[in-house]
């Protein structure tokens, strides 16, 4: 057996699990998006009808754009809140640093569903937020504005996805070599200048990477809008989910999910590009 034949055989064998369980399902699902559904029967005729129906119909396309906007907002808020926290943790020394990091990551280990439930309880009419606001005199009576709308979805998502941003930002800050910080001080820069011109630019690629990760996670989340969104908090995830449930139009759902897939791919590609520019 020649060496290269062995190599190809090895590749063939090792590639089977990923191909079988990842590529093939993705392929079959993209294929399904090109099919048709009529009266709950799938008609296997290739056409772009589903995509036309999606992009041409403002109910669907508008929801998709609205979801993109919502997820961008969630990501932006998460970065605005998460970067200072990560920076603060990074500034600590030794044991404190890792303790704080651990504390920042622990909320990720809480059950997602129960987190949603408790947030719904907190934001609700009888919930803790209302009670607290009434207690300090900001409100006279409980407000309905905190729950079952798009804002509630936004707030809930930020609480859920914030830890996903803190960790990558911290990691990107940690990668800044101490030698650069020392050199900056040696050259006479104060703390603020060093941050502005050395730390922040160097940490940006990693931060963008982490932000995009949170963005992609938020994109496909359909449970959060269902639980706290009420009738106005609708994301494309919910629409896709219903195609596989009550609406029972699998090909159409697959088409919308394919659009989501491509969106996420673009996001990942951007994040990869941003991260690769970090040459330290």
């Amino acid at each position: 057996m020649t060496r290269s034949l062995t190599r190809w055989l090895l590749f063939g064998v090792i590639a089977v699990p990923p191909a079988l369980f990842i590529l093939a399902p993705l392929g079959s699902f993209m294929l399904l998006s090109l099919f048709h559904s009529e009266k709950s029967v799938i008609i296997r005729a290739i056409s772009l009808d589903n995509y036309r129906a999606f992009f041409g119909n403002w109910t669907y396309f508008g929801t998709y754009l609205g979801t993109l906007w919502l997820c961008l907002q969630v990501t932006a808020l998460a970065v605005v809140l998460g970067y200072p926290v990560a920076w603060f943790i990074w500034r600590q020394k030794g044991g404190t640093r890792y303790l704080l990091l651990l504390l920042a990551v622990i909320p990720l280990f809480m059950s997602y569903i129960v987190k949603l439930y408790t947030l719904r309880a907190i934001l609700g009419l009888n919930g803790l937020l209302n009670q607290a606001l009434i207690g300090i005199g900001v409100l006279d009576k409980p407000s309905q504005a905190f729950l079952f709308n798009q804002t509630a979805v936004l707030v809930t998502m930020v609480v859920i996805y914030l830890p996903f941003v803190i960790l990558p930002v911290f990691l990107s800050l940690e990668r800044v070599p101490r030698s650069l910080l020392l050199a900056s001080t040696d050259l006479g820069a104060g703390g603020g200048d060093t941050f502005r011109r050395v730390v922040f630019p160097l940490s940006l690629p990693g931060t963008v990477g982490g932000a995009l990760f949170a963005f992609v996670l938020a994109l496909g989340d359909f449970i959060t809008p269902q639980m706290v969104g009420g009738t106005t908090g609708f994301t494309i995830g919910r629409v896709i989910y219903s195609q596989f449930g009550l609406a029972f139009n699998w090909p159409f759902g697959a088409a919308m999910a394919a659009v989501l897939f491509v969106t996420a791919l673009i996001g990942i590609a951007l994040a990869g590009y941003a991260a690769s520019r970090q040459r330290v």
Partner: protein
Amino acid sequence: MTVLVFAVLYAPLFVSLLFSLVEIKRGVIQWDTLSFSPYLTLWSNASVISALSNTAQVAVVSVVIACLLAVALALYTESDGAIGRRVIELVIYLPFLMPPIVTGLALLVASAETGVPRGLATIVVGHAVFVLAVAYRLVLTRLQSLPPSQVQASADLGASRWQTLRLVLLPHLASAVMTGAVLALTLSFDETLISTFLAGDQMTLPLRLWAMMRVGFTPEVNALVTLVLLVSIALAVVVAWRMKPDDMGEE
């Protein structure tokens, strides 16, 4: 400001803890019902316990599969002259980078097309595929940190490739595999979005919790969630301890 953010992040945890100890009627806390009994009575709640056991089974099986695959794939991609390295890595990372809804749907469609009935087995596949990326990344990083001189020395001393694998490479990877396994277990335990599409009659804990959300959670459920959280934290502390930068010192 950090304190504020932490307060917001921890609010759900503490509220859940609170709910596990007292009962709430119409938003009013009934302090007289304060007790730890839910932590004991939860073990007799059949539906929750069966969901818990399903979740545990799925977690263990999918993590074992993922770790085995991760080691095999990492060894392959790091070997000299490996064909298709970039492509394989991309495919491995894909299910983790995509919105879970896409991964779940893809596997759902695949299972429907091939006639595989949905159940715990399909959930295992979903979790394994999702978690593979994490395990692979950890093992790969560890494998890359092994100085090539050690492998060469092993060959110089007369070891066959198989022996080098067994006595040099695998022990070096062992702790990375453990770390990856622990991380993967916690991921699998709470995995909801993918499992939604792949579940049959048997539910995992997150799915059971979602179904119960309409009715509301009894203190027992909150107690269970708090316990799971505590165990996860304990595991995370162990992992964090092992990942401290004493073997990652690069400047």
